[in-house]
């Protein structure tokens, strides 16, 4: 039975369980709802949930675990000499999966019978040709080991699926029978149902932890693989980024980190003064109407998707800068400083624009949190408004503003689309902001798009980069939140 059908059957069982359970409770109380411990619908919900939830849970866990087990058993079947030079277990396994899918499709379309698919021998028949007929294109002829592994894969998946269907069905029926049997007018259905719902609420809340664990584990796992293939000293302390898909790459994070930090620095140089002054004006000077008008408009800048900023960098700001600083007759200033539209300055400027509302609204909140009494005291002593802001409000708000700037920095470091489109692809140490440089996020994108081979260091390095990025931004966020929280306590 296909999985969606199985789910539908389970749901149907649950719906039936609701009505049957409710009925049974009513019958046990002779139709007098006052004799029931709980409201009648709780008895129905009890049966429905007991039938549905454990079965669905089992289904989900089975679907997650089965591929893993089959994968490890089948890859154990492939003899080491079947893995040719330059290939890996992972590549052979993807062949195996493709052949297995092809066989499934062939059986489905009637080109092969189930019996034939199980007993097909590549020694005797042209598997590639027969799969080609049903629209499964294979790159090369199917080798006997691969075909046998694929057949084992199919058999195991098939058996696994059957066992799963039976087990899930049994669990659902057992849950149904058990809870239906317990349904009686004295049964505390509401308490049981509420406990069940509570468990589901807790599960939903722990999904956040699961996500974090998933992020960390998936990256740690692949990073470990990467450091098995590539020396970690080169990654952390090398000086060159030169991936080479024929092997022998130099993969050092330092040039990428430099590009990332340089671009972020320029972005902050744009965003912090503008954002901070905007926040000061809005919170200290502006009247209500100006504030109601300017604040939401500024915040629109934060709601624009980054792809828009990326395109703006690539097609408007970059060419504009080239026209200013560029070579030949194109450059207005007659300088020959810039050769292409992608540069640190392009990405930095545009990212700065993106961060303005981020800095301004965070600082705005923080400045507003400074107690009015401090301003009144300063103004009462004869200070002008700007002196009050500079000498009283700012020092009081400083920790919070530092926190806001750190949060903005973390955003800048993790920003992807603007740098992918505006910063360029050359990894180098340079101080010239008009040269193109590359960043951590850009390299993650370029190493992981297109065909990825999870056995080569050139692909796996993206996970090490991602982990570094994660640790970096997480550290900045935790630090910023710590500073902001500590500061808030001072005035509360």
């Amino acid at each position: 039975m296909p999985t969606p059908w199985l789910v539908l059957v389970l749901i149907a069982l649950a719906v039936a369980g609701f009505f049957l359970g409710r009925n049974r409770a009513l019958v046990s109380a002779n139709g007098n709802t006052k004799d029931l411990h709980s409201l009648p619908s709780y008895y129905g919900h009890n049966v429905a949930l007991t039938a549905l939830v454990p079965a669905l849970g089992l289904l989900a866990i089975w679907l997650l675990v089965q591929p893993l087990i089959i994968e490890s058993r089948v890859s154990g079947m492939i003899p080491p000499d079947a893995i040719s030079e330059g290939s890996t277990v992972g590549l052979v396994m993807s062949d195996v999966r493709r052949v297995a899918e092809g066989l499934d499709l062939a059986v489905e379309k009637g080109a092969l019978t189930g019996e034939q698919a199980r007993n097909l021998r590549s020694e005797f028949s042209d598997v590639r040709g027969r799969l080609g007929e049903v629209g499964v294109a294979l790159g090369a002829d199917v080798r006997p080991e691969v075909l046998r592994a694929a057949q084992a894969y199919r058999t195991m998946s098939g058996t696994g699926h059957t066992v799963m269907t039976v087990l899930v069905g049994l669990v659902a029926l057992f849950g149904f029978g058990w809870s239906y049997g317990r349904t009686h007018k004295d049964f505390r259905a509401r308490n049981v149902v509420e406990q069940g719902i509570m468990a589901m609420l807790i599960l939903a809340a722990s999904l956040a932890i699961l996500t974090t664990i998933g992020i960390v584990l998936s990256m740690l796992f692949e990073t470990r693989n990467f450091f098995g293939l590539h020396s970690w000293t080169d990654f952390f302390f090398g000086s060159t980024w030169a991936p080479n898909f024929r092997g022998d790459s130099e993969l050092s994070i330092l040039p990428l980190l430099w590009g990332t930090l340089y671009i972020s620095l320029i972005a902050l140089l744009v965003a912090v003064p503008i954002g901070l002054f905007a926040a000061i004006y809005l919170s200290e000077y502006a009247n209500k109407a100006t504030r109601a008008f300017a604040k939401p408009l500024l915040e629109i800048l934060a709601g624009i998707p980054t792809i828009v900023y990326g395109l703006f960098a690539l097609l408007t700001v970059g060419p504009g800068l080239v026209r200013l600083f560029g070579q030949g007759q194109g450059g207005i200033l007659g300088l020959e400083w810039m050769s292409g539209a992608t540069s640190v300055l392009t990405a930095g400027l545009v990212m700065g624009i993106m961060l303005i509302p981020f800095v301004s609204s965070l600082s705005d909140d923080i400045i507003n949190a400074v107690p009015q009494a401090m301003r009144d005291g300063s103004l009462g002593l004869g200070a002008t408004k700007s002196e009050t802001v500079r000498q009283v409000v700012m020092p009081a708000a400083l920790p919070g503003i530092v926190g806001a700037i750190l949060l903005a920095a973390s955003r800048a470091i993790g920003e992807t689309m603007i740098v992918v489109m505006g910063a360029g692809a050359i990894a180098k140490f340079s101080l010239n902001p008009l040269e193109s440089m590359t960043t951590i996020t850009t390299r993650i994108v370029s190493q992981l798009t297109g065909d990825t081979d999870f056995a080569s260091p050139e692909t796996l390095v993206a996970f090490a980069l991602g982990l570094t990025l994660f640790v970096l931004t997480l550290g900045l966020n935790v630090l910023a939140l710590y500073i902001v929280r500590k500061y808030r306590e001072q005035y509360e």
Partner: protein
Amino acid sequence: MTDHNQTPAEGDAPKRKHGASLLQLTDRTKRRNAAETRFKAYGIAAIGVGLLMLVVLVTTIVGKGLGAFQQTFVTLEVALLEDKLDKNGNRDIEDIKKVTTFGYAPIIRAAMETKVETLGIESALKGKDMADILSKDAAATLREYVIANPDQIGQTVEFAFLAQSRVDGYLKGRVTRESIANDKNISAEQLDFVDQLIEAGTVKKTFNLAFILGADASDARPEAAGMGVSMLGSLFMMLVVLALALPIGVAASIYLEEFAPQNWLTDIIEVNISNLAAVPSIVFGILGLAVFINYMHLPTSAPLVGGLVLTLMTLPTIIISTRASLKAVPPSIRDAALGVGASKMQSVFHHVLPLAAPGILTGTIIGLAQALGETAPLLLIGMVGFIASNAPDSIASGLLSPNSAMPAQIYEWAKRADPAFYERAWGGIIILLIFLVTMNTLAVILRRRFERRW
């Protein structure tokens, strides 16, 4: 006004001279006032710069993108010759399908030559060069039309063909005779020919519905590329996000806000959620690639996977806003429910949750809008490249067959380094922003209409 003559002393004079008026500004006061004015001006300038950037951004997008909604068409009367398209004459659809696009090219060329003759246009161009002002898509479009309407074979049909992107650019002012000096796709003679056709009314710019509804097209045919299929990809992703993020997010918020005891586990969950909200989106893409594609073998480029990744990304946003709206429901509501004998769970589900619903909805819409514009994680799970070529025909294929998404499609066009595709990228941004503005406006209206102040 005797004070008038008494000018203050030179330099810094903290003490006012005896007899000097308070109305007379000292130098120091003037300086302080000037600093005050300057400071205020900086603030105004900062806001001005911010708003200016917004204006520049919007005008750039509109200015460069509106062109994509118009397209140049060439109207020709095509004689669908029976002996070319259906040699057996029995209108068997399989026979008609055997004629490839190469079989249609001569028909279109002949139609172009006829047109030129009837208009009496003098041109040194050969028939092939004339037909080259049409899109490379023209033959395929005509073939599709014939396959869909086999009864039209043998008739003469008026047909509006797409013009190729250079001709389109010429009508939109993007292409000039100077800019095509080294262009092998079009020659100055062809542009002269186009000028003659424009005069005759054969070449016209009209509204381009295919850009909004159509599929992506290959590198050589920017004029045929559209957003429609990637819009469907985005739609399916948003359905996945809505179906998963809303119930999970609301459940998590209810637990954390109403039931969670104050202990270390709750603390960990809360810290986790606020940190997840600040994790760069590309990290979620890495997670999706490693877990959903590499480990669980879900299909690459599928909107289902994109939706799962975006769900994880939007969850913190939805949880944070849902908790805020649950918190806004006053405790008296809970107390009243408990007082008439409801259980804690009943008070939450029967009373608090319905009252918080508008706020939850608003937060969800804003979360969805954020997910709709997200690009980076989609790049990692393969939702880019020339894949948005066929509209899905069922919900299952919509979720599982490879597709792109609106922002990923825009990125794909921007990468192709062709001004005709750039125009489409800007146009795509207009469509994307229309969706975002609509969603955000809806959120604001919902908030204004239903939010209750207690």
